[in-house]
């Protein structure tokens, strides 16, 4: 690749234009967007904190009323934990990780942009919730049943639901991100860079995204169940026999790994900066990595230490006490490793190092106080007090301290300018003093109850010191913003490597790096970083190089990647040309899809219960019809497009008829719909259309010709991404099934079947559905074989069969549900519906989630069918899309094989 002048990046508009930032998919731009946006949310969450501290100036403060204070503490926690700290860390991860591992970008650049825009819009939805009456006011931990409509004041219902849906959108962003990073780090490392050879920051990000993949799925389950309680009236969390505890289990199963998800990137920055600024390699690096791996694994088995007072039995308390203490031990090792790295070092007290070192010291204090909480008998008293608050702020904001160190560390690399060192030290000084003035008094007056603004008069002095500390801490950030802004516009140019003894790959390239990152293909094959000529990868030269197991090379001579597609024989879509492996960098669709999601969820916050599903059903014809429209635009008009439009018309008619029946008449239905209904409808329709457009967009992402790929050398990127996604879906369903089992045990296993489920709920519909789905799985397999053998008619036939069987599944289910909704006589006069009891809630929601997966699968099948009708997917190299879909479809079928016995037989 030839070097381009700044502002002329391969078709991307220059950085000075707004458009650039809206369409970019480059990891460096996305990283910058994340960092800036996260700082915005830091300010928002920080202002709430200042409100809290002002209220606490005297006991019984009167700045905010009860509901207002609760909103402040809840929103402060949610904003800081979700919308500030992790996205801030992932801003660095986005920017730095590909550079550190020698990649040109992440594996799925458009999805990366999608993650960012989903994050931004989810945060905007959350901020909007303040203005929809009142935001959620039940604490960031959102305990049940305070989180269900029964206990939420009417004025707060819409805003609370908006907050919950904002969190759902945020989890979607995180899930996409984790799939992306995992695929990248396993499949796109430079030659010679084994997993354990990655720089420390990248390793911490790897472990973080592994934890995210599993933990956030559990959180998503919790939020979806909670949303169901709000939107559909189900009774998961208001159930008297276990609803409260169900929430605490789901939330804390996520919540504990979450605190390490939040901390690990900071730990990575500590390791990097301690090495750079002491000029000494990390002591015991191998053990450090092993310790982190242990923590990541153990983080999933400590959650009940948040539940010691919920009446769980002694053996369980003992186990969780042991695992909790167990997880503190690897941290001891890591702290010692950092300290010993200083010995015989050449320590320089630059601003990044000050913040990093400060972060370590604060974490030590936080960690020690955590051991107190692990001693159950002490926890009995500390529960719900400021001891807990002080502990977690020391560890979490200790992490933030190191992240700020990272901001100063990488600022020169990102911007090409050096920040003002004196101002940096001023920031650190005020920050560190402010931090300790704010949080240390909380240990002194630890007996203050959490989330309460009445406290013992004798504590007033300490609370006032804390308030002053809070303002000082906030003020220190003003210094930082001024410093960074001023430096950005100054003349202080930064070198490629402004830090002596920095060693990782990002310091070998210019500040800021060019679009393609490196001057050639990064390689560690010689034991140190070198850059291979990119043209050497084309043609035979690359084939002469010795390869060891795990590296993958160009399969066909002359081309850089094996994903390049030649012009299609049917004369359909023209793909990118082959010789240079040109990559795309810009797309509008991530922004548009995210914006439609914002609109949809905003509308959903206020839709009345009887109207909840209808916007999505009415928008379905848009999806179907738009496949026809887009297909016609891109591939030329064909019979399949007419089929789409016919199907869209039929669907619209069917939905309209059902709507009319449900509401009395079509006119009555629309008359009774609130503005929220129409907002949701617009969001859903535009959302469906933009998803179609994004799926159809030609976006070329050549895989690297030479890379370390252990252990996934044979699984190319898109397939690996699909596997990771399915992994998180497994955990999602696992949480749903686990919730069902938990509630069933809590309510009485036999009682459940005997009293809570009508006799009319028979096995037969489930059995029929099982046969339908299994057959459809076979159909997909045969479709794939047909595609590989270039048999277009068979491919179309079996895709159509899959579609028909799937539709049959849904129709059968609709009949079954309709029957159950309209039962008469006996114990279920009025029908067995979503709201009847906890058994009905779990049945409809769990099998409903599965049905939604089927619907998504069918829409994708339709898309594939229409494209196949124009000649796509034929041949070994092109059929893989059918394979990826097959993986998803088989997963959906396998889930049904678990659900059927649980909900129909046992």
């Amino acid at each position, binding site marked *: 690749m030839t070097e381009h002048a700044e502002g002329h990046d391969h078709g991307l508009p220059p950085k000075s234009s707004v458009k650039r930032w809206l369409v970019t998919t480059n990891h460096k731009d996305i990283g910058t967007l994340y960092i800036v946006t996260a700082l915005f949310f830091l300010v928002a969450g920080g202002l709430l904190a200042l409100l809290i501290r002002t209220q606490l100036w005297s006991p019984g403060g009167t700045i905010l009323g*009860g509901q207002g204070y*609760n909103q402040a503490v809840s929103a402060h926690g949610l904003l800081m934990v979700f919308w500030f700290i992790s996205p801030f860390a992932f801003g660095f991860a986005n920017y730095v990780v590909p550079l550190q591992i020698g990649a040109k970008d992440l594996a799925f650049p458009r999805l990366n942009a999608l993650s960012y825009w989903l994050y931004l819009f989810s945060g905007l939805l959350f901020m909007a919730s303040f203005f929809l009456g009142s935001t959620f006011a039940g604490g960031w931990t959102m*305990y049940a*049943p*305070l989180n269900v409509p029964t206990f939420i004041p009417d004025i707060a219902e819409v805003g609370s639901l908006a907050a919950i849906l904002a969190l759902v959108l945020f989890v979607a962003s995180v899930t996409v991100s984790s799939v992306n990073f995992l695929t990248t780090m396993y499949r796109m490392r430079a030659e010679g860079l084994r997993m354990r*050879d990655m720089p420390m920051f990248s390793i911490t990000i790897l472990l973080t995204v592994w934890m995210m993949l599993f933990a956030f799925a559990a959180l998503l389950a919790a939020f979806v169940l909670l949303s169901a309680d709000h939107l559909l009236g189900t009774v998961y969390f208001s*159930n008297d026999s*276990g*609803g*409260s*505890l169900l929430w605490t289990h789901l939330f804390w199963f996520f919540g504990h790994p979450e605190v390490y998800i939040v901390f690990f990137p900071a730990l990575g920055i500590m390791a990097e900066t301690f*090495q750079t600024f*002491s*000029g*000494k*390699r990390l*002591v*015991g*690096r191998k*053990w*450090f990595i092993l310790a982190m791996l242990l923590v990541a694994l153990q983080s999933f088995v400590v959650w009940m230490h948040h539940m010691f*007072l*919920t*009446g769980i039995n002694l053996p369980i308390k003992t186990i969780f006490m042991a695992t909790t203490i167990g997880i503190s*031990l690897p941290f*001891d090792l890591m*702290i*010692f490793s950092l*300290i*010993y*790295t*200083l010995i*015989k*070092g*050449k*320590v320089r*007290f630059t601003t990044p190092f000050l913040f990093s*070192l400060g972060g370590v*010291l604060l974490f*030590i*204090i936080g960690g020690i106080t955590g*051991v*107190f909480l*692990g*001693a159950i*008998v*002490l926890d*009995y*008293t500390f529960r*719900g007090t400021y001891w807990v608050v002080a502990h977690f702020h020391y560890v979490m904001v200790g992490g933030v301290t190191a992240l700020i160190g990272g901001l100063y560390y990488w600022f020169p690399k990102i911007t090409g300018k050096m920040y003002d060192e004196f101002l940096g030290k001023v920031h650190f000084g005020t920050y560190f003093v402010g931090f300790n003035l704010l949080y240390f008094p909380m240990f002194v007056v630890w007996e203050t*109850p959490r*989330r*309460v603004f*009445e406290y013992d008069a004798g504590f007033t002095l300490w609370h006032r010191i804390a308030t002053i500390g809070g303002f000082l801490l906030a003020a220190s950030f003003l210094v930082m913003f001024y410093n960074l802004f001023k430096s950005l516009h100054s003349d202080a140019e930064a070198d490629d490597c402004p830090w002596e*003894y920095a*060693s990782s*790959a990002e310091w070998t390239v210019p500040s800021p790096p060019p679009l393609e990152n490196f001057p050639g293909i990064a390689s560690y094959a010689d*034991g*140190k*970083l070198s850059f291979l000529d990119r043209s050497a990868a084309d043609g035979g030269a690359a084939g002469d190089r010795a390869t060891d197991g795990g590296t993958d090379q160009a399969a066909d001579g002359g081309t850089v990647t094996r994903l390049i597609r030649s012009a299609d024989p049917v004369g359909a879509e023209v793909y990118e040309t082959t010789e240079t492996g040109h990559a795309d960098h810009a797309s509008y669709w991530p922004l548009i899809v995210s914006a439609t999601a914002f609109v949809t969820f905003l509308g959903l916050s206020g839709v009345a219960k009887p109207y909840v599903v209808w916007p999505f059903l009415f928008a379905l014809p848009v999806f179907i019809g738009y496949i026809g429209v887009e297909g016609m635009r891109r591939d030329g008009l064909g019979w399949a497009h007419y089929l789409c439009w016919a199907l869209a018309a039929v669907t619209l008619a069917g939905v309209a008829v059902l709507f009319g029946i449900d509401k009395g008449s079509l006119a009555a239905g629309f008359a009774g719909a609130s503005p929220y209904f129409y907002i949701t409808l617009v969001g859903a329709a535009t959302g469906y259309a933009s998803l179609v457009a994004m799926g159809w967009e030609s976006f070329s992402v050549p895989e690297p010709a030479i890379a370390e790929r252990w252990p996934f050398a044979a699984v190319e990127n898109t397939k690996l991404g699909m596997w990771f996604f399915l992994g998180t879906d497994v955990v999602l369903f696992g949480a749903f099934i686990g919730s069902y089992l938990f509630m069933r045990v809590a309510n009485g296993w036999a009682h459940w079947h005997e009293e809570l489920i009508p006799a009319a709920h028979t096995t037969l519909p489930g059995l029929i559905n099982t046969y339908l789905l299994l057959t459809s799985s076979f159909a997909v397999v045969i479709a794939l074989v047909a595609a590989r053998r270039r048999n277009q008619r068979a491919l179309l036939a079996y895709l159509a069969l899959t579609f028909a069987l799937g539709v049959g599944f849904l129709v059968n289910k609709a009949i079954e549900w309709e029957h159950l909704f309209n039962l008469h006589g006996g114990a279920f006069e009025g029908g067995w519906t979503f709201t009847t009891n906890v058994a009905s809630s779990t049945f409809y929601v769990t099998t409903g989630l599965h049905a939604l997966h089927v619907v998504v699968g069918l829409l994708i099948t339709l898309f594939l069918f229409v494209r196949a009708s124009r000649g796509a997917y034929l041949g070994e190299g092109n059929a893989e899309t059918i394979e990826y879909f097959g993986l998803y479809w088989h997963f959906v079928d396998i889930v049904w094989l678990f659900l059927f016995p649980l909900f129909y037989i046992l």
Partner: protein
Amino acid sequence: MWGVAVLHDSVVGHAGGVSRTPVDVFSSIYTVFLALGTIVGVVVIGYTLYNAVKYRRGNREGTESKADVVRPELGELPRGSGGGRKLFVSFGISAVIVISLIIWTYSALLYVDSGPDEGDELEVDVVGQRFSWTFVYPNGHQTTQLRVPKDRPVELNVTSADVFHNIGIPEFNAKTDAIPGQTTTTWFVPDELGTYQAVCYELCGSGHSVMRSDVIVMQSDAYQNWYANTSTQQASADADATNAVAGGPA
């Protein structure tokens, strides 16, 4: 091992023939943790700062031989430096400290969890409801003020009528969650006269900050008098209720 036995007795069971209260248990453990935690914190932080300052660049220049330490180089394949052994020694010491501390507290946990000694404890049911506590005595009397006799252990069986609460009486180290649909337990020994507060420690709504009830510790005979009165009131109230049901005179 004699030291361990002393530690054990100091926390658990009957030192000098008097049962330890939850307050005694908490105070002794907390004091030890605080002392040890402070020492460890001071030592580790001090050691860190000491090294950071001692090895700062410019401090030892000229005294260091070139062969001493290999410095990181730009573009190198990441690796660590040695020193694994020292690391393990430190790690081992900290692990021993932490684990023994926790094991030491375990017997205290067993003691607290086993409840007050069988015999004369006063059992009171507690119902948390937004935003106050209702105490139900054995004779059925309900009140929003908890009155207890001095020096007699009190066991609270706690539940909630609506959302998740948590009741705590900080002066006596009583605390437990109040969960709708289930009952949890805590106990304490009110060994000082006076008026205290039972506070809510789990966010429960807009009135959470003011969800407090009085806990009044009285002399034993004063308590007995009060309780007897409530028995009389309760008996007549019961009688009224029975009469009302039976349709008899009001």
